[in-house]
């Protein structure tokens, strides 16, 4: 590790069918900070980014976020005894809420993160989105919440089909009748807990807007794309930059209302029949396509580091010109069993006692 080079921890290293943002963030960081030392925080030894040539300089296993804040802090303390990172970019929905509740503890340790308060985080959660959208003059799909299958089916008959059923954090399914809804809601409730969110299906093109809020109601930049190819699971396999003042203005209103600090991704659908943008989700993190604008000169990950280190970047993140597109390109990375074993044992992290428990469970999943 070079003296004075930033030492940055990044999570969410997997890039597969449903890629996480961490690997793209690391690529963006290296573009601007080639000497940066990047610490990968991984929840699974099979996260592909661990083994990528342009991946993190070292990787440490973390307990799952469900283990709670104390367990995460213990692990971070142990990791920092070896590698004292002072900048942290969490990237996974499931961990953001936990780390947002630990902002003070992280600050006390000298770890800079850019996360909203729990209250602000809650306001953009799926179940509270209609209230936020109403304040901002933004359309959302007609939405109902349900905590059990019977209530979900009742809500389904009121909303009408087809519907999108979502878990509170992950997963969404389109259902066309009550039987499908019952199965999907039951699965989501058992997998992710309550509530399930039911929304009327909006037909149209999907748009994503990523950006970096300044915490005072403004932003340091944003980049809008239309998804041009979707996977079976609705993930964007390709996208093209767009410039629509109506879309930017709508997103600016949301960021202003929330005084959002740090990375965000806003997901919308432009309704085919009306041309209206309909708000679907606000994610409290960068998306997996974060490195795309970076390749166009709009390096949001680097701007976040500037924000964390100096309070503000040297200037706004430049706009991306409309008409540039990305295509997701998956390649194989070579995993080495020695590396795999070292991670499980906690070497070279020298944290064997801390890694024993997750390692055993992860060995089973690997087998």
């Amino acid at each position, binding site marked *: 590790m070079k003296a004075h080079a930033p030492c940055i921890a990044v999570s969410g290293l997997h890039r597969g069918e449903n890629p996480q943002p961490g690997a793209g963030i690391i690529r963006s960081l290296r573009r601007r900070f080639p000497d940066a030392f990047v610490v990968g925080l991984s929840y699974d030894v099979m996260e592909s980014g661990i083994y990528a040539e342009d991946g993190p300089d070292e990787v440490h296993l973390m307990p799952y976020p469900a283990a709670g804040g104390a367990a995460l802090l213990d692990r971070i303390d142990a990791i920092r005894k070896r590698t004292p990172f002072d900048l942290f970019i969490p990237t996974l929905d499931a961990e953001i809420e936990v780390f947002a509740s630990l902002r003070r503890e992280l600050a006390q340790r000298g770890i800079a993160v850019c996360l909203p308060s729990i209250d602000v985080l809650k306001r953009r959660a799926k179940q509270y989105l209609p209230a936020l959208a109403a304040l901002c003059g933004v359309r959302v799909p007609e939405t109902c919440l349900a905590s059990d299958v019977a209530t979900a089916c009742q809500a389904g008959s009121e909303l009408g089909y087809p519907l999108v059923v979502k878990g509170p954090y992950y997963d969404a399914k389109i259902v066309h009748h009550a039987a499908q809804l019952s199965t999907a809601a039951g699965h989501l409730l058992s997998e992710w807990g309550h509530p399930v969110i039911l929304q009327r299906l909006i037909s149209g*093109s999907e*748009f994503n807007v990523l950006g970096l809020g300044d915490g005072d109601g403004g932003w340091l930049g944003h980049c809008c*794309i*239309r998804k*041009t190819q979707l996977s079976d699971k609705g993930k964007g396999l390709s996208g*093209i*930059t*767009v*410039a*629509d003042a*109506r*879309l930017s203005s709508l997103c600016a209103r949301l960021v202003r209302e929330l005084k959002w600090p740090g990375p965000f991704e806003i997901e919308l659908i*432009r309704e085919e029949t009306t041309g209206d943008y309909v708000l679907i989700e606000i994610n409290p993190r960068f998306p997996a396509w974060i490195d795309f604008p970076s390749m166009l000169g709009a390096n949001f990950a680097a701007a976040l580091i500037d924000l964390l280190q100096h309070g503000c970047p040297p200037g706004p993140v430049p706009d991306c010109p*409309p*008409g540039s597109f990305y295509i997701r390109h998956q390649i194989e990375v070579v995993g080495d069993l020695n590396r795999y074993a070292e991670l499980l044992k906690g070497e070279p992290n020298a944290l064997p006692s801390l890694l024993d428990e997750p390692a055993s469970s992860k060995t089973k999943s690997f087998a």
Partner: protein
Amino acid sequence: MTTILENLLLNDRGIAFDPASGETYRLVGPAVQLVRLLQKGADDAALLQYLLEEYDVDESTARRDLDVFLGTLEQMKLWEAAP
């Protein structure tokens, strides 16, 4: 009247891009120049004149092809005929 067509970004290879919607269109043959002329505000007579000057075609054929082209633009909500 402002139409989507006026804002289309057009390259020399016949790819038109709507920067607001993110939609792309492939234009072939005389369509590239016809769109360029429409963006400059050319009227129906000027478009017809262009086809007659640049292509070996009689007026009735040019008229028919132009109507089909403009109809397609209208159908795609890219352009509207002057009332």
